[in-house]
């Protein structure tokens, strides 16, 4: 399994973002569909380790994702918002991100 969650829940204060989700996602392409407020973004943030679950567990590639940056070597994450600097070229930005993945300068460029 690529992703496995057990009784996964997330609250933002008094507001429930995700409630008791148990799901497994196999290898391949999987789409996540739902109405506004269904918790799609919250689920994505939880399975990419951006948010800490209020309750339950998330495992990605067999390992817990929260607080496990080493696992990010094996994950590609595209956020829903644009992220770029006006002062940097696209190539500079991508190169610096690749270097964060551990590629040496010569290979990153």
């Amino acid at each position, binding site marked *: 399994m690529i992703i496995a969650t057990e009784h996964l829940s997330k609250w933002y204060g008094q507001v429930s973002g995700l409630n008791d989700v148990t799901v497994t996602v196999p290898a391949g392409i999987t789409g996540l569909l739902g109405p506004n407020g269904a918790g799609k973004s919250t689920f994505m*943030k939880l399975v990419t380790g951006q*948010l800490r679950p209020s309750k339950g567990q998330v495992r990605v590639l067999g390992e817990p994702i929260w607080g496990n940056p080493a696992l990010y070597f094996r994950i590609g994450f595209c956020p829903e918002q*644009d*992220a770029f600097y006006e002062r*940097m070229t696209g190539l500079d930005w991508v190169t610096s991100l690749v270097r*964060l*993945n551990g590629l040496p300068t010569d290979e990153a460029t």
Partner: protein
Amino acid sequence: MSPIHDQGYRHYGGRREPQGRRWWVIGRAGLMARIRERRVIAVLLAAWLPFLVRAVQIYASANFQQVAFLAPTPQMFREFLGQQEVFIFIVSIVIGAGLIADDRRANALQIYLSKPLTRVEYIAGKLVTLASVLAFVTWLPAMLLLVLQMLFAGSTKFLTEHLFLIPAITLFALVQVCVSAFAMLALSSMSKSRRFVAMMYAGILFFTAAMYQALRQITLSTAWAAISPRDTMNVIADGIFRLPGTRAIPFAAAVVVVIVLIAASMLILERKVRGVEVVT
């Protein structure tokens, strides 16, 4: 070479740099971006003007009897680092204000923290960017003045008589750099606007200094110096350089204030530097 449409996703199989060096990627990128800016170069050049003045002073005192009274003393090195506080303030604003605020504005924090990079490494990288430039305008010129004194005087007599100056300069510059860098980073993490951060930083420094002066006049007590980072740093400087000074508050109290300031900054950074901002 196979056609592009035949190339699917492939895992990178080349070498990777060992973990624990990601902070340097952040720090280096920040430094390179800043030192390309003309205003940063202008500030850094201006920050070395007091060094030139002091160098001339040391040269003249070593070579001309008429101005021997200008000979360097431990007080001179303490005053030099005190004067550099103006440039610490300017450098902190010009370089530090946007360090995290710009990342928040560009939505880059989420990208950074989805890489194999811990929040500690991210903050350490930002800290390195600002701290290295601050050290460039404090510790480095002060140590070079010591070297110049030896060269111009042609002896190590002054240094051997005041050997404590090496650790004193290093320690006080470290305190200056840490306090300014942590405080500025904490403020930078609280906003998406570098201008607002700069105003907050300047406001806090000037407001606390003014508050101290007002409370001192009203209560006739210098204990209020603890609310003013600038006056607290003066106490620390006098203590480290073994000078009597005004000692508005006990040295130990000043150390506690500095520790509390850095701890509060770290707490703010811990709460604010997150890939996803959760508003409850």
